[in-house]
């Protein structure tokens, strides 16, 4: 009879495709919105993960997330270095600065200043050039291949060339990506591109520009405090968690391991912004759309077939068998609808890969969508099952 239950489901084309569409759309909306949310949220702490070889981040205790500039005193570096268990400590500058391009266009950039001596916390993936090149005068390394805002130069200018006096360059003219040798202005100071790097997409727009710490300070607006964080490497054998506590105890600064700092950053965006609520609403909408469309369709499908279930019941089918048939129909519809939705989300994700859209489908997301679809199917089938259980087989003689 279970085979016949499947045939009954597949045979009612209009309702079957309606149910599939409803469940597919629900799982699509749930998985897609959840993936975009995760992608967006993971961008908030992507920079922390990109800084390699660092055990501990030391920062102002009132700082909530990595992009929030609450600079430390210069003395913080030495104080941290003085804590037992610290192998080395390096300063880090991170700030949003405006770069002026040769055509006069201004572009917001993430400027990262790394330790002049050790070049620790440099860019993770170098496309062209070397980190050591940052020691050259005015040297900067610029992010390329960004989905958000790449640094684009006028095509008519060769790398390193500047417009001749009186030469007009149309800001809307043809562009080319930044190349080694290109020159930009950061806060009215010259910066020469000596390398190209790839960085993870971050929450803030604009390309990332790496330079050494001392030079970054020259680009940054004058301020009494400029050090964004101190990056620490623990001595071999020293527990980073214990070292964090020691640093906080002895300096008063916040000290967290990269993962903990990432979670602190994530916690800020989750708790202090409306982003989770907005995405939560979209996800809930997907769920309720699923309940409304698929649930209603499935219920109607069962209602339409109630007379046949009644006939089966009269012919000796037990209530358990009929419930099994309804449950199987719901399960099959759920699996197919889920597959349809997740397939569409995967296609969407592949299409969005490398684009501006933040999209990250964690392995848990399909399971969450499956859980939601399961709940929709259970809700729909329980109501339908109720009708089937309550069905009086004698009703078949009443034209039920």
């Amino acid at each position, binding site marked *: *009879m279970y085979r016949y239950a499947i045939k009954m489901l597949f*045979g009612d084309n209009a309702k079957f495709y309606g149910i599939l569409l409803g469940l597919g759309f629900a799982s699509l909306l749930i998985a897609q919105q959840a993936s975009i949310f995760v992608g967006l949220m993971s961008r908030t702490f992507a920079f922390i993960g990109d800084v390699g070889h660092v055990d501990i981040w030391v920062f102002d205790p009132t700082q909530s997330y990595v992009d929030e500039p609450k600079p430390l005193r210069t003395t913080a570096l030495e104080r941290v270095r003085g804590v037992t268990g610290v192998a080395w400590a390096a300063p880090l500058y991170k700030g949003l600065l405006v770069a002026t391009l040769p055509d006069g266009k201004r572009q917001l950039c993430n400027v990262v200043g790394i330790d002049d001596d050790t070049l620790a916390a440099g860019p993770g993936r170098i496309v062209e050039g070397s980190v050591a090149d940052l020691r050259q005068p005015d040297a900067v390394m610029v992010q390329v291949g960004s989905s958000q805002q790449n640094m684009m130069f006028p095509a008519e200018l060769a790398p390193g060339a500047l417009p001749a006096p009186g030469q007009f360059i149309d800001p809307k003219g043809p562009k080319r990506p930044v190349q080694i040798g290109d020159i930009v202005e950061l806060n009215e100071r010259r910066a020469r591109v000596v390398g190209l790097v790839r960085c993870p997409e971050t929450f803030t727009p604009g390309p990332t520009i790496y330079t050494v710490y001392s030079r970054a300070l020259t680009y940054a607006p004058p301020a009494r405090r400029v050090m964004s964080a101190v990056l620490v490497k623990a001595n071999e054998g020293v527990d980073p968690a214990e070292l964090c506590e020691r640093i906080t105890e002895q300096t008063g600064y916040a000290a967290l391991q990269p993962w903990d700092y990432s979670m602190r950053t994530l916690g800020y965006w989750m708790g202090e912004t409306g982003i989770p609520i907005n995405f939560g609403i979209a996800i809930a909408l997907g769920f309720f759309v699923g309940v409304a469309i698929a649930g209603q369709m499935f219920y109607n499908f069962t209602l339409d077939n109630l*007379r046949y279930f009644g006939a089966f019941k009269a012919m000796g089918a037990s209530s358990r068998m009929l419930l099994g048939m309804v449950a199987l129909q719901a399960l099959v519809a759920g699996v197919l609808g889920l597959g349809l939705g997740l397939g569409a989300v995967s296609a969407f994700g592949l299409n969005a890969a490398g684009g501006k859209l933040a999209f990250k489908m964690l392995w848990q997301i399909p399971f969450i969508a499956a859980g939601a679809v399961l709940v929709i199917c259970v809700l729909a089938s329980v109501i339908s099952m109720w009708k089937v259980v309550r069905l009086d087989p004698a009703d078949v*003689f009443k034209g039920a």
Partner: protein
Amino acid sequence: MTSAPTPPASATPAAAGRAPSPELAIRLRAVEKTFGKGESAVRALRGVDLDVPAGALTMLVGPSGCGKTTLISILAGLLARDAGELAVFGQDLGALRRDRLSAWRRDNVGFIFQQFNLVPQLTVAENVSVPLVLKGESVGAAVRKANDILATLGLEGRGSSAPLKLSGGQQQRVAIARALIHEPRLLVCDEPTSALDAELGRRVMGFIRDRSRSPDRAVVVVTHDDRIFHLADTIAHMDDGLVRSIERRTPQHESKSPA
């Protein structure tokens, strides 16, 4: 009708407490059924006595609302009686729990519904095979047997068709095939000729009556169609929740009945 009605059932010897005849398929005594409660209660059956002979075709006739449908629902094990006695081929249906009653119906009863109730998503043969599949037979074997019985009903080669592509008469024959494929002892038919023309109705009823001609079988038909009354061995006239009279028909009557 050429035969004179017998006295009301309550006046028959059976109703007076005589031991059931071994040829009886169904025995009902003082069966009552009420729907609803209080002032809105409807007494559908008010103490029905009825003996349905084995090897014969019995018709339940009477005006709408007289309790025919309630009565066949009870004697087919679809509805529980409120009071009275009921034995079908010696089985007291009231003694069976719900799951055992379902199994009893599955093994002993064939149904022909007024609306046919053929599942449109299944093929004709699959519809016919349902009783066998319910009994645990494999779908393949059940469908093969379904095609065989369809052939005996003049529907050879139509097993893979969709039920809705058949005419009303053909659908009725499919419903008959479904009701008979598992060779039930009791065949219950609700207005089996209501959707058929006179000629087809007679042919269908003739086929059904032929299936009743076995000492371990019985056919009960609810009908308004007086064109087929002549095919009955027994006609129970119902009114207001009671069997008012019973006609026992003989072959002579049969031959005298209008065709």
